[in-house]
């Protein structure tokens, strides 16, 4: 009662995340000082920027007159190659990802398998697509095969990790109920785990398809085939209008995929 008396009339504030005031202030001042110091190191050559603006303008203006016709056969061939690369690498990557994701979920896999699968994921995620592509182009030569392998490899790291997290956060009791019926392991996965993670798997797969398509446009820059190769050539020849046409097609396809993913995810909820 007397304790309450001392509390009444005092303002209340949410306790600070960092309890010690000196540490809190030191961190805030340190951050501000770093921000200022970092800003001062940026070296901008303003006359160069002024010249560059002209080139940037040309590039952007090219979008008002995109040239689909002059290189239409190149664009078409590159686009088909990219789409084939995207679909093939997504299918293969996802197929490999699913067993790895099962192994990388701590709640269903024993420790040794968990560690192996997590290592595979870590390796796949640590190696950036461009680096893998350069390596694979060196091994397999220029062309879409290197791109396909790169994207499959990248898909494994992405999809396995996120799917494994989906499995780890599933409802344990539903899976327990299936186990209690005397189901074998494969049946348990099929009835107790799969229905719970299916919407997530489908959502992630479509998202990865989308990423793979965009990546396929980049990988061409290092010689791994696809529309990126066509785009690179257009830039090298300063054919900004052709490049603009290619970029517009890429944007359209990504938007279409985005729309498609929305429709499909609404259906499978």
């Amino acid at each position, binding site marked *: 009662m007397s304790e309450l008396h001392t509390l009444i009339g005092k303002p209340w504030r949410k306790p600070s995340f960092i309890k010690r005031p000196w540490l809190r202030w030191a961190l805030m001042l340190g951050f501000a000082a770093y921000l200022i110091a970092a800003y001062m190191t940026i070296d901008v050559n303003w006359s160069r920027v002024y010249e560059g603006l002209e080139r940037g303008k040309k590039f952007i203006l090219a979008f008002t007159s995109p040239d689909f016709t002059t290189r239409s056969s190149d664009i078409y061939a590159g686009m088909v190659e990219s789409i084939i690369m995207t679909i093939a690498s997504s299918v293969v990557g996802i197929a490999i990802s699913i067993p790895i994701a099962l192994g990388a979920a701590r709640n269903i896999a024993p420790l040794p398998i968990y560690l192996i699968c997590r290592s595979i994921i870590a390796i796949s995620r640590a190696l950036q697509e461009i680096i893998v592509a350069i390596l694979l182009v060196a091994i397999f030569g220029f062309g879409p095969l290197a791109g396909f392998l790169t994207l499959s490899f990248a898909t494994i790291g992405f999809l396995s990790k996120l799917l494994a997290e989906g499995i780890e956060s599933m409802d344990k009791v539903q899976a327990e*109920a299936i186990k209690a*019926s005397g*189901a074998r392991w494969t049946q348990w996965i099929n009835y107790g785990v799969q*229905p*719970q993670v299916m919407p997530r798997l489908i959502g992630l797969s479509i998202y990865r398809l989308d990423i793979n398509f965009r990546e396929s446009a980049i990988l061409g820059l290092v010689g791994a085939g696809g529309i990126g190769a066509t785009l690179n050539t257009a830039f090298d020849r300063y054919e900004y209008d052709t490049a603009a046409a290619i970029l517009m097609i890429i944007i359209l396809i990504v938007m279409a995929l985005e729309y498609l993913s929305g429709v499909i995810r609404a259906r499978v909820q």
Partner: protein
Amino acid sequence: MLRLEKLVKTYKTGDQALKAVELNVPEGQVLALIGPSGAGKSTLIRCINRLVEPTSGRIYLGDVELTGLSQGNLRRERRRMGMIFQEYALVERLSVMENVLSGRLGYVGFWRSFLRRFPQKDVDEAFRLLDRVGLAHMADKRADELSGGQRQRVGICRALIQNPALLLVDEPTASLDPKTSRQIMRLICELCKERGLAAIINIHDVALAQMFVQRVIGLRFGAVEFDGPPDGLTPDVLTTIYGEEDWEATIAPVDEDEVEAAE
């Protein structure tokens, strides 16, 4: 039919959930397991079908010792133990029929279950059970479209289609309204009688337990404090199980009309 000998469960955290529990359940007996939260009721039930691995002690189902069975043999024995869960534990994105048929998983091969091609007699039995609990028309609905009481009925069908010898029932009425709770308890006890099943029912509601079961076990801090008929639950006994409280209202014979009026 079910026999527990010195069953001990110690969790990794060091908490001793069960302290040398001894229990003998004869064929066809329905017993209620009561006790405060954390007394080890859920752990006890889950130790029997080894969803929770007991630390020591033995469990016999008939002549088979369940403790120490290999994974394959354990699966075979789990078929003889149907389990009904708190919050139903239906796989929500599967249909009612798939949920019921999942009780047969221990009997059919992987590909049959994967392609949902269950033997005709399993499908017939599923319809018979669903009809018995009044849900035959719901077979192709998805489980998450059902109300709480309906879900628990599906859960009961899933347990019974295993053709078990024993039902393990974990808080079947915890999230149901008073009337549905009674209906579910009545249904479980009727079905046990029809089929001559033994059942262990974890339950918080002492009055509800008294209404339906033949025997009550009181658990406190992982040890059996009371073992007797339902009318042996005097205020003194409840005090030893749960601690000091005024028990008169809890165990006074509940009048049907009174509950009806209260709803």
